[in-house]
């Protein structure tokens, strides 16, 4: 495996993905969880651009990434709005503390 720019991008994607998944598994602060989700989505976005490049359809890949930015912003906004409400109702952002529904 030679070190070509594409491989570097691939490594970055995998790295971001790993960070994101790890973050989701250990983070308990709601704001941080939204951030970690952003990291995950960024990795997916890079993956789409890279896929466009590899699949000889760079334009498609880029437009997909642009769409993901929009969709992902909406999710982030909703997530943060929920975080605000959670802080108001519970006085905390720790997801472990707000967990009442189980079983």
């Amino acid at each position, binding site marked *: 495996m030679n070190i070509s720019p594409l491989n570097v991008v691939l490594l970055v994607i995998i790295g971001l993905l790993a960070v994101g998944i790890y973050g989701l*598994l*250990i983070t308990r602060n709601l704001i941080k*969880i939204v951030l970690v989700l952003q990291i995950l989505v960024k990795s997916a976005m890079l993956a789409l651009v890279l896929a466009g490049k590899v699949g000889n359809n760079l334009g498609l890949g880029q437009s997909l990434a642009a769409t993901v930015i929009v969709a992902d912003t909406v999710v982030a906004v909703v997530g943060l709005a929920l975080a605000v409400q959670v802080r108001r109702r519970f006085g905390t952002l720790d*997801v*472990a503390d707000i*967990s009442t529904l*189980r*079983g």
Partner: protein
Amino acid sequence: MAGTLSVLLIGLPWLGALLVWLSGDARPKILHILAVGTSVSAGLLSLILLAFAGSQPAVNFKFGGWFGDFTLVADGLGATLAAVACVVGSLAVIYSVDYMQGEAQLRRYYAFILLFIGAMTGLVLSGNLFFTFFFWEITALCSYALISYYNDDPKAVSGGMKALIITQVGGVGLLAGALAAFSNLGSFQIADLLKGATSIPAGLLAFIAYGFLLAAAAKSAQFPFHTWLPDAMEAPTPVSALIHAATMVNAGVYLLARFYPAFAQVPGWTLAVTLVGMLSALTAGLMALTATDLKRALAYSTVSQLGYMVYAIGVGGVFASQFHLLNHAVFKALLFLSAGAVIHSVGTRDMRKMGGLGSKMPFIRNVFIIGALALAGVPIFNGFWSKEFILEAGLKQGPVWAFGFMLFGAGLTAFYTIRMTWLVFYGQPREQLHVHDSGLAMKISTGLLATGALTTWLLAGPLSGLMSGSLPYHAIEPISTINLVMDVLTGAGTWLALIILLVGAGLWVVVQRSPNPIPQAHWFTELMGTFHEELVSSSFGFEWLNQQVVAAVKKSAAVLQKTQTGELNWNILGIIIALLAVLVMLFWGV
């Protein structure tokens, strides 16, 4: 004509059920009239249908792709059982006018009884396995709803649940068998299965045969599924008489009889049927011996008598089993309804508290005794002829050891029947019970059934003619009533059975005469008490088995419930693990 009648037999009770439900609980009188009207007219029509019975489909229309044709065949087997269902059904409904007087939520009661009558007719008339299963499940639903009718009583609720789950587990056997047959024959028609059975691969045919046996055993409360029927006795008594004695529990016997020609060649199947019947007859007989609850005693005896029918099919006596089925339906419904009259009057089901009731309700005593004599198999009552006919068949075609056990069972029957009758109607009153005589409706229906218990055996000739003429695959020899009587009277089995019966009856006299009459400390009661506690109360260990299964299910549910921790990180972990598992499965090629 047969077509119209068959459709009416299902449609009329169902229409009645709908009307009953729609008319609400406010005016019970309308409910009584509607229920009696529709069920009695169905009963009369079912008798007319007997005249039009034939092996050709009476109704046949295309229902849709995966369901086959909707076919009704009013052949000897179907029409007879439909008549039993409708006639006993109408008598039970008439009886309910008195018995259920003043109960709340009467429409729920009548609607389900009428739904049941229609479904039962559909079940026996259906010529399509899908619809057999369809009606089979509806009868289970009705049985559940009616057992749990007094649903403020936890015993009624759990009894209903148990009956539902056990019969449904059995129903899986019918479902699997029917679909296995379809996968090979490409048709749900029962006639096609009977005709094409020889072309089905042996393994598949065995799968179907044993599946049906499982379904039949569960529905007819046969060994090892016999535990649900006694608990079903929480239902109002007319329901016990109709569903849990005279009709629904016969569905299993019907199923075996219907498919006997197809499965008789399956290795071990007839032996298995014989064994199931024999074990049920014996164990239930023993349990009836020690029961103290009048209805439970009758329920055990139902299991035992159904065991006789199953045994008869096992040894190839299809007609004998159906003959006994008819007779049993009449005398057992009679016994239940007259027992219901007693219970309704004294307000308890505990036989230890009764005693000496005969002089206070002479009519009920008389009809009960007629039923009891028929159950015990005393000559000229209908139960005698069919039971002896079964034993004849068993002696001629079945294994000798099974015959021996069945003979012993006949003695048991005589013994527990006399015990039951004695405890209720004779001896000294053991507790001060307020007794009132039964109402007119109760007397009409029990009186009619008592007449039946004395006379239905005369129908043996026409019945066998009907069945041999309309069941092309069963090879039933027509036999006239006179010949049947002669057969029975000259058979060795009959005389053996009568001797055993006398021994059984004599044993009761000995027990009864010895000092310290029942129920206080008495050697026999003590013996039976120990026996009861050790074996009978647990239905010979099968109750324990049931409970183990239920406990295991509940335990695993509790364990699984713990996996829902409600914590977000844990939930994400679930996603990641599932992803890894799926990728591993994909790459390593499952």
